[in-house]
């Protein structure tokens, strides 16, 4: 097992998550959806790593593998815990996971379905505290009150049920639940996608404040490139179960090294009519993760594709350096291409 460098808190190595496709009367396995297919990356202490991609690219699956909501098919998830010990979360039995459930927490996308409508805010936010035997009775109430204050809700509301709150407020409750056990890593899975634009900013600011205050590390999963650009220190771009590019945010947005990133950036409509530009419109549909094409998965839609792209699968490799951070891309032609980014 490799050891983590001091600045790395979590390292995902060759992670695979394949879901079997079952069919027929006997539920035979006829194939696999390769939702996450051989993905490696590291999350650095105190940073926000953004994970972007289109629906079905596997970004949510990665988040759930790290949280061990799923049991990964293969690969390692190395994590350096509070006592500076290193464990492989992917190899742990579910019964041994409990201590890590305190240190790694998750914020969900849908502020409606992620809160049990039959429980009060006190019960929802207090549940992890009760489960881990941290607090009960009056002490539990005190701690929940503090958590609510911290996320900008009035503690008097803790006896209310979720249906008393708006979408933004519900998301704050979800954040309070995630913070209840003083976590070190928070996986935010599309945490602001279901919110109205005017409320989105409130939650983004809250997440930013909490990170500074509590020294949190975020894995921020989103399909919204503008949001990711705003919150992330580094960004990983996914396409059909693989990371195709990973770099420091400014570098990735200004000078992408993978044609898919370029197309993705160009596809985002910019809220400024003076910046209207020729969009790069990709042909066809996203590849089927149960039956991806040979070679580079992106080659059928890539305007720079060559013959070798159709046969050789490119590896994610360092193609540049910004400061002490490498710029990774999985493209045969990463160095020679001069791709268009977004400029302010």
């Amino acid at each position, binding site marked *: 097992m490799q050891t983590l460098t001091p600045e790395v808190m979590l390292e995902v190595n060759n992670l695979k998550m394949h879901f079997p496709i079952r069919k027929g*009367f*006997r*539920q035979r396995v006829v194939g696999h959806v390769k939702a996450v297919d051989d993905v490696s990356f590291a999350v650095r202490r105190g940073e926000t790593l953004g994970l972007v991609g289109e629906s079905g690219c596997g970004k949510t699956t990665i988040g759930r593998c790290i*949280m061990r*909501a799923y049991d990964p098919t293969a690969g390692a998830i190395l994590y350096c815990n509070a006592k500076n010990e290193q464990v492989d979360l992917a190899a742990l039995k579910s019964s041994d*996971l*409990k201590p890590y*459930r*305190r240190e790694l*927490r*998750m914020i*969900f*996308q*849908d502020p*409606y*379905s*992620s*809160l*049990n*409508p*039959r*429980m*009060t805010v006190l019960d929802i936010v207090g*549940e*992890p505290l009760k*489960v*881990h035997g941290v607090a009960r009775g009056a002490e539990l109430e005190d701690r929940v009150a503090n958590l609510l204050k911290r996320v900008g809700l009035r503690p008097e*509301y803790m*006896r*209310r*049920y979720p*249906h*008393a709150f708006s979408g933004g407020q519900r998301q704050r409750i*979800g954040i309070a*639940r995630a913070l209840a056990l003083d976590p070190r890593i928070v996986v935010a899975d599309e945490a602001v996608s279901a919110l109205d634009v005017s409320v989105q900013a409130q939650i983004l600011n809250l997440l930013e404040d909490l990170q500074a205050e509590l020294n949190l590390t975020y894995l921020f999963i989103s399909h919204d490139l503008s949001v990711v650009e705003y919150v992330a220190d580094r960004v990983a771009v996914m396409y059909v179960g693989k990371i195709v590019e990973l770099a420091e945010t400014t570098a990735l947005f200004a000078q992408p090294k993978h044609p898919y990133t370029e197309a993705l950036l160009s596809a985002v409509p910019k809220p400024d009519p003076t910046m209207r530009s020729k969009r790069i419109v990709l042909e066809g549909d996203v590849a089927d993760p149960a039956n991806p094409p040979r070679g580079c998965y992106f080659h059928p839609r890539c305007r720079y594709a060559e013959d070798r792209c159709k046969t050789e699968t490119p590896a994610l490799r360092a193609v540049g350096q910004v400061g002490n951070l490498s710029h990774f891309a999985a493209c045969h032609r990463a160095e020679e291409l001069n791709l268009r980014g977004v400029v302010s």
Partner: protein
Amino acid sequence: MNTEKETPVYVAPQWKLVWWKFRKHKLALVSGIVILLIYLVALFVEILAPFLPDQTNSKYLYAPPQSLHFVDEQGNWGLYVYGYTSKIDPVALRRTFEIDSSVKIPVGLLVEGVPYKLFNLIPGNRHLLAPLDPDQPMYLLGADRLGRDVLSRLIVGTRVSMSIGLVGVLLSLVLGILLGGLSGYYGGNIDNLIQRVIEFLRSIPSIPLWMGLSAALPLDWDPLRVYFAITVILSLIGWTGLARVVRGRFLSLREEDFVMAARLDGASEMRIILGHMLPAFTSHIIAAITLAIPGMILSETALSFLGLGLREPVVSWGVLLQNAQDIRSIATAPWLLIPALAVVVSVLALNFLGDGLRDAADPYAR
């Protein structure tokens, strides 16, 4: 609305929201009260029935119903019924009865009569409404071919008919929750197998099967054993509906984010199922139970009616209707059909109640 006024809704737990939603259904509310009354009757049979159900009286075979009077011709208050005069029909050689308004039979409230043990425990001999002289006839709903009081038999039958529904449904519920829960929770092959069994049970006609199974019950079994055998037979087929409801709820709940959130909180499987999932479908199950009871009642009635279910001396609505099987006896004594009315009213009320409950079961639907 200001904050203070909103608070009741905001802090209302599930059962309160269900109740608020339920009470908007007036019909369901009334039905609920009717059902409550019927079960109260079933509970206090001994006090409510004027006579013993098997008390025969050869003097009053097929005596027609009398009506209860509160005031007599002279304007005096008092409870009484009129007596009968009988004459022999020379053609049919049968005794026919007419109400004789010259004979007044006084009746009273909480009259001493045949001794009984309430709930098999508390001894007593008071009957809510009975003739003061126990030898005088009082047939508010008429008499049957042995001169037994239909009203008393109807009241006694309530206990058996309403409880067979309840017991049968409880048995179905155990099977349904167990198998539906297994099916929904584990999925995969177990689910597949259970679904096949359910499909099979639903695709065969239930009555012939019930008939076959109950015909196979030994004739020398005592009534209690037959009663339980019949409930078991009914619930063997009846559990499928409940299992489907439970499975469906389990499947949809398993996908809910809040269940995953509880798992990520570190909660144990038991805590997740009991604390997070179960409360989400208790109200659905209660509604499903309410809707399943009428089926059981109807099935018992049908089987007993055919002579394959409960038999005399057990008294149930179906057993009572057996007397009304051929057109001749109905023509002679149409009041023998009154138990049918009890069946219809209780089934109707349970259906309305169940419908209302089902609509109110999920107050969080958006």
